[in-house]
């Protein structure tokens, strides 16, 4: 289980903002945590998946896509802020992500 610091969150946020600015060709200053990924940025699930791959590589995570698939069905992501929150949970819990639902 990775140790999460405030710095990690800032790093994740920076990567996510830069990613959507480049991919969706919008000014980074127009993106905030409340921005809707599909409605405002015309985003899609492929972008979500690519970000997961980027974070898997960056933080050397052990996380299977099927785990994220099952988790995201129950916890759908609509905004940039929710996406960052989910990425933080993935970094922190990796393949134990689904244990969060069992505990709650």
């Amino acid at each position, binding site marked *: 289980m990775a140790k999460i610091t405030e710095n990690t969150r800032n790093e994740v946020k920076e990567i996510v903002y830069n990613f959507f600015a*480049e991919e969706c060709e919008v000014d980074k200053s127009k993106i905030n945590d409340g921005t809707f990924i599909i409605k405002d940025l015309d985003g899609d*699930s492929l972008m979500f998946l*690519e970000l997961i791959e*980027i974070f898997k590589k960056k933080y050397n995570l052990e996380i299977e896509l*099927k785990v994220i*698939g*099952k988790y995201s069905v*129950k916890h759908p992501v609509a905004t940039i802020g929710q996406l960052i929150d989910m990425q933080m949970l993935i970094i922190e819990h990796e393949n134990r992500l689904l244990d969060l*639902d069992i505990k709650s």
Partner: protein
Amino acid sequence: MNNPGIQKVGIVGEGKMGSGLLYYLTGFDLYLTWSCSRAADIDKIRKQFGKRINRSMESGIIDENKHQALLKTTITSELSDLIDCDLIIEAIPEDVKLKRSLFANLDLMVNRGCIFASNSSSIKPSLLSPSVQRQEKFAGLHFFYPVALKNIVEFTVTPGTSPVTISAIESFLGDIQRFYLTLDEKNSFILNKIFLDFQLAAFQIVNQGLCSFRQMDELVKKDFFPFGVFDFMDSVGTDTMLASIQNYIADYPHKSWFEPLVLQLQEMVKHGKLGMKTGEGFYHYPSESISMGEFQDSASISEHLRQTWFSSVKRFTAQSHIPIGEINFAVKEYLGLLKGPFES
């Protein structure tokens, strides 16, 4: 790839499913051709593809060799560019005429050895295969969305699909690491049909005035699935749900059971209430989740739904002769469940 038969794969369609499938397949050693219908968008699609594979290399997800291989992916608006494919998977809108026309055109221009597959989620392949001469090389390959997250494919064979084609496709699905159910047409779209029985039971209960759509969805989320029945229909689109249900029940002897649900969906479609995409379906969007709390008889309704669910799963499992373990895994993948219907 240990199957020399299928190395060149064509995807037709640039929608969510077509693009999801294309990007999923970039993870394997395949030569890919992506045929997109909107010629005007080709430059944009190529640019986006280029950006994605460049980012993958910069992030260390793929190496230089893989990057070079992916740069050879053909993105085109010309069907003739699919000429030397070993397998073409169609992922265009759910329209029988449109799909027949596509396959008829492909049949005239693509090499005779190429296998054709439809990714339709509700149209049986035998309704499409008469449009081609190569009926022995025709099948249904229903991937689920999002392709990368749903490890399940319904592989439907027609009476005309040859054993060689079946073997080649099964080998291909193994190579691309997808779990699959091989189905005859009677059992095509088995996962959606199993869930449809549950959806119908939930609708009938609401229709009898025993609870509201919202209350039913809350009950379903509490006791069964990660999402509600009517949330699901709004997410898919009531128009798509209507067309799919009409296709699924076409051969059912008891199709009248589905009439109230079909009528409800027809009425919604008529008034443009297509679900999330139009801002209104069973619910309004963007919606706020309002807890309605427990309602009278919720325990007995939950038990009724549970019996419907298990009875449906068991009936379709027996009818299809698919091993219990396989159905169990497939249902879990399809609905995002932690435990399948055959696990205690």
